[in-house]
């Protein structure tokens, strides 16, 4: 079964404020969908609803049976006083991974992201780029089929952003469906599909190249039109 996530008319209101309005989307295995929008467009609220941290006001979403969800928040959600290795162990235990599977996954990410020299460093002392990669590794520790990344590249330099997106693409190639929210329009071209949100609603949806062509050759025109 390829369909991982189906969202139908999802809405979330906070009093009179409509954070997400009539949002519909589907996500298949291996898809990378980028969710773009200005601050307050509803990206984080959308992700929080899918994870289950916030209850929708109306609409529904379905996740494929047996699907495991991975999540990476804007603030990385690492335990600052624990070292890199201890964070792996802590979250590995919370995910209830069998020992061998945990060791394999952990070692794989440590090697892949070259974290060997940081293993005994407290995460609150790590540079931002390292925290980001650690948080990404932890979100993938339990081999999720759906990955939700909330502004994972916020505040990072170009090199670290590129590094993360390469990791995202690798994950997609393994068949993980990924939804990423971000501010950076240049990252749109890493995605298979993009969603432009404005005031909680979908403003534009589609292939980034096609959308850019429709917007006069540059996605930023679409974004600026949205801002106007």
């Amino acid at each position, binding site marked *: 079964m390829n369909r991982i996530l189906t969202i139908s008319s999802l809405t979330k209101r906070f009093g009179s404020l409509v954070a997400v309005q009539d949002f519909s989307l589907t996500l298949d295995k291996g898809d990378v969908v980028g969710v773009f929008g200005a601050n307050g467009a509803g990206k984080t609220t959308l992700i929080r609803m899918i994870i*289950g*941290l*916030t209850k929708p006001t109306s609409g529904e979403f379905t996740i494929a049976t047996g699907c495991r969800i991975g999540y990476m928040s804007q603030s990385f*959600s690492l*335990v600052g006083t624990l070292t890199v290795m*201890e964070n792996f162990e*802590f979250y590995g*235990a*919370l995910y209830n991974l069998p020992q061998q599977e945990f060791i394999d996954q952990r070692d794989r990410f440590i090697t892949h992201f070259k974290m060997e020299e940081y293993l005994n460093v407290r995460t609150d002392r790590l540079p931002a780029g390292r925290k980001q990669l650690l948080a990404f590794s*932890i979100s993938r520790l339990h081999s999720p089929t759906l990955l939700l990344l909330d502004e994972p590249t916020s505040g990072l330099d170009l090199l670290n952003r590129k590094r993360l997106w390469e990791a995202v693409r690798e994950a997609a190639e393994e068949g993980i469906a990924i939804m990423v929210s971000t501010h950076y329009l240049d990252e749109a071209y890493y995605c298979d599909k993009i969603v432009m949100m404005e005031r909680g609603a979908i403003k534009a949806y589609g292939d980034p190249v096609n959308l850019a062509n429709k917007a006069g050759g540059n996605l930023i025109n679409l974004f600026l039109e949205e801002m106007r």
Partner: protein
Amino acid sequence: MKRFYYIFKHEVLAFVRFPLMIILLLLCPIVVIGFIPQTLGHSIKFNCAIVDMDHSSASMEIGQKNLSSEHCLPPVWCKSVEEAMHLMEYNSVLMIVSIPEGYERGIALGNPEKITLLADGSRVIEADIAVPKMMSLLSDNDASGGIINLHRLFNSEEHSEQYYLVSLISMSLLIIAMFLIGLNIAGEKKHNTLSQIIVTGVDMRLYLGTKVLFYSLVVILELFLCLAMGYIVYDMTIASGIGQLVMVTYILTFPLLFLGVFIASVARNDIQAIYLMIFLMIFLVMLSSIIAPLANMSGISYYFCRMNPVNWLTESLRIVITYGYPLRTILLELIAGILLSVIFFFSSIRLLKRIN
């Protein structure tokens, strides 16, 4: 089991690597137990002014009685009540003994003039204690004598600081229980670690329960530190067994721990959590039998005190440490403590997930 172990390990590591927690753990016994009881419940030596209008040997005798009494500081002799009042306004004297003219002659005639005792009512506690002592001193008569034999229980030698020690131990445990776990959870919410933990699918009952279990052990450690300080400084001993003491503390600290969790869950950010904890802690301390006994409370405060888990802890500690009575005398408090813990536990889980 594995999850339990790693959650517990996470708490231990987070605790030992946050020096403030260790400082808090140590400050409580040192400041609250080692230092504060020195201030409490000693007997007052009061100071008084004597206005002698009689200038007789009888009035001199009154001065002598004051001088030789263990309760009095040497009196100040004033020429007039106005002069003595001036001293009272400057808080130099607590009482004024005014001996009228003709006092000695009156005694000889069998119809003594009345001595006037003026007490500073604005210093209520001191006046309350000192006036009867002064009256006893002046009349050479223990007012309780004659028909009543007075027995002072649990405090025969007036070593009062020892009897406040239990109250202060209870206060220390409250501070540790609420602050530590409250700040911990508020911090997890602030750094969004809690969202990540919820996403892992771990049972929040397991997660929260393990966390509270760890901090309950910290509270027991604190109990031992406080007992050690009490023993070293004041020779405090425990009337019942140590096992009973640990059990009672353990059960009755859980409502306080869960209260700390509850506050951190209710608060929207860590600053709010701190504010709420401060005010709640002051309420709980004041409206328990830590500062003033239950018998001193009137109206609704009395009933609040009876429902206050800090009061349960204080009274139970008193029964175990001071009186040495069997645990069945506090069965009601133990059951109430367990019930309250359960209520706060499930409420906190719901709030932490905050499905809205």
